[in-house]
């Protein structure tokens, strides 16, 4: 298998060139997504779906950056998404419209507006700050306790968004955001976030976080700060999630705090789990699979005729299918489609490790380098 130039494996070879190949793999993965999306986007009625997919992908890559590297299932990330959406949305609403829709908005927010990537950065930053403030406390917890604490964070964020009436219109619908989200904006953000997430994963900080995930006591005994390493992951991933929220705001133009609550959370977790929560590549795959599934279900709910047979499923079937997909995935592929594997460029010397005297019972699961055929365009 020395002639493959691309492989799916759980790690990259040691050293600088290995790191370069891993990052190259991430770039390639985002390029593949970009090309396929561009092609699909041209099909009739698909433009919107592709944009939704792109935003979902940013979202899941952001989520994965935390959940994958720290092993903590977070329910709080929908809250970060909401913060990003509101912050980005407020930045993007034109000054004239602010006067109309937000008469009580304080002047320092009402007197300006922003276009282009600025609302995205603002959305990401607000979310990142929220993570930075709460992280040092929340990240002391592990396992289910951490999950429930992040659920608490979500409830708190939701509550705050519902109460900050002058700038969010409270629990009522926030609207008036111009529809600025374009293909280029979504997919450039996606490429950037994939690269950011991969760079983090393979960096020293990311490695420390993964070490804490696998064996917290041993990591501490090796000098790693558990809280700090998790907090770094929390902040980076909140930043990316916030960007996704801001993109979302400018695609849909209207939303309410309820849009960033348990329903959306299930969607994110499902995408991450199905693709493989431990893998950046998996995040892309998961976002694609669930977006397609959702879209198909949405169409079926609306009633579709196939060969003279009208399929008309009762409303809500998308959620049920999502639930079933989750259970089935967890049963047959507990680690998602990709597990810990990433797309990694392999050079001529990049063969798998040589376990000379490997045990007799070396299983297939355990061999970690699965060569794949180079992706077809």
């Amino acid at each position: 298998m020395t002639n493959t130039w691309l492989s799916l494996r759980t790690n990259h070879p040691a050293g600088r060139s290995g790191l370069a190949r891993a990052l190259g793999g991430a770039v390639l993965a985002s390029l593949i997504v970009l090309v396929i999306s561009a092609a699909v986007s041209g099909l009739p009625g698909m433009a919107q779906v592709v944009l939704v997919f792109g935003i979902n992908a940013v979202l899941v890559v952001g989520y994965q950056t935390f959940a994958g590297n720290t092993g903590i299932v977070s329910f709080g990330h929908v809250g970060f998404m909401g913060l990003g959406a509101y912050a980005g949305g407020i930045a993007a609403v034109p000054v004239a419209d602010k006067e109309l829709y937000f008469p009580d908005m304080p002047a320092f927010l009402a007197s300006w507006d922003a276009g282009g990537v600025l609302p995205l950065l603002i959305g990401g930053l607000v979310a990142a700050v929220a993570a930075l403030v709460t992280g040092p406390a929340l990240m002391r917890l592990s396992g289910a306790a951490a999950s429930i604490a992040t659920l608490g964070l979500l409830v708190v964020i939701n509550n705050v968004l519902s109460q900050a009436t002058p700038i969010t219109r409270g629990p009522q619908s926030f609207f008036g955001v111009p529809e600025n989200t374009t293909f280029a904006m979504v997919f450039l953000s996606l490429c950037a976030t994939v690269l950011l997430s991969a760079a983090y994963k393979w960096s020293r900080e990311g490695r420390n976080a993964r070490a804490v995930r696998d064996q917290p006591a041993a990591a501490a005994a090796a000098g790693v700060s558990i809280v700090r390493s998790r907090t770094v992951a929390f902040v980076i991933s909140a930043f990316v999630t916030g960007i996704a929220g801001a993109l979302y705001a400018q695609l849909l133009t209207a939303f309410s705090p309820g849009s960033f609550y348990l329903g959306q959370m299930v969607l994110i977790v499902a995408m991450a789990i199905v693709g493989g929560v431990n893998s950046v590549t998996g995040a892309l795959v998961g976002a694609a699979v669930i977006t397609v599934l959702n879209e198909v279900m949405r169409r079926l709910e609306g009633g579709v005729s196939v060969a003279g047979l009208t399929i008309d499923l009762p409303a809500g079937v998308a959620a049920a299918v999502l639930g079933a997909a989750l259970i089935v995935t967890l049963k047959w592929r507990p680690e998602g489609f990709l597990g810990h594997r990433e797309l990694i460029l392999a050079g001529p010397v990049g063969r798998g490790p040589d376990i000379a005297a490997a045990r007799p019972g070396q299983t297939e699961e355990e061999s970690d380098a699965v060569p794949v055929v180079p992706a077809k365009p």
Partner: protein
Amino acid sequence: MTAPLLSLDGITAGYRTTPVIRDFRLSLAEGESLALLGANGAGKTTLMKVMVGLLRPWSGRVLLRGSDITEVAAEERPLLGVALAPEGRGIFGTLSIEENLLMGALAVRRKEGRRASRALVAEGLEQVYETFPVLGKRRDDKGCHLSGGQQQMLAIGRALMARPALLLLDEPCLGLAPKVAGELYEALGRLSTAERGVVVVEESSRRALGFADRACVVKLGRKVLDCPAAEAGDDEAIMSAYFGVETEVRS
């Protein structure tokens, strides 16, 4: 001629697609004790799992006193008299020490009924506390609070609580102080009676060979030596069986 206590009849077993144990045959007479030796990863633990039913063999049969128990579920085998002190000890950390031991006695309870078993269980507890006094002293402490060696004692004690006809011990000396290890084998010597067969898995052989009637060496999932323990005491044969490249099966 009575049927042997345990016999493995051409067992092949493994995980997913990789075979670990290949065409393994073994038989253990009533009251006999056997030392099962082999290097790291040879498949000893896997073999134990097959015997207790945690791993279903791909082919072959497990017979207990002549009856085929291959399809009997793991949770039913203690009632037939099979008990294992597993590798890694398997202590219930959230249960107290006494509760751990009572779990071991569950098979007796299920078999004899609640009332009839009461005396047997009390007697069993007494015996275990006598063999390992530290367990008696700490009986209400949680399992996870014990030191490594203490946990090992608890695992063995728990297996004894089932009053097994076939006692299986997977590396019982791991982490035990030399004195305790010595005492353990002495105790095993007493426990191995006409009604009870014992199989001990060990990597280092000295003590096990001193105790067992027979020795059996596993290499890469196959049996490469099966002889009386006294003969195997001849170090050279064992060593060659362990590490040698071409050793024939002697039997």
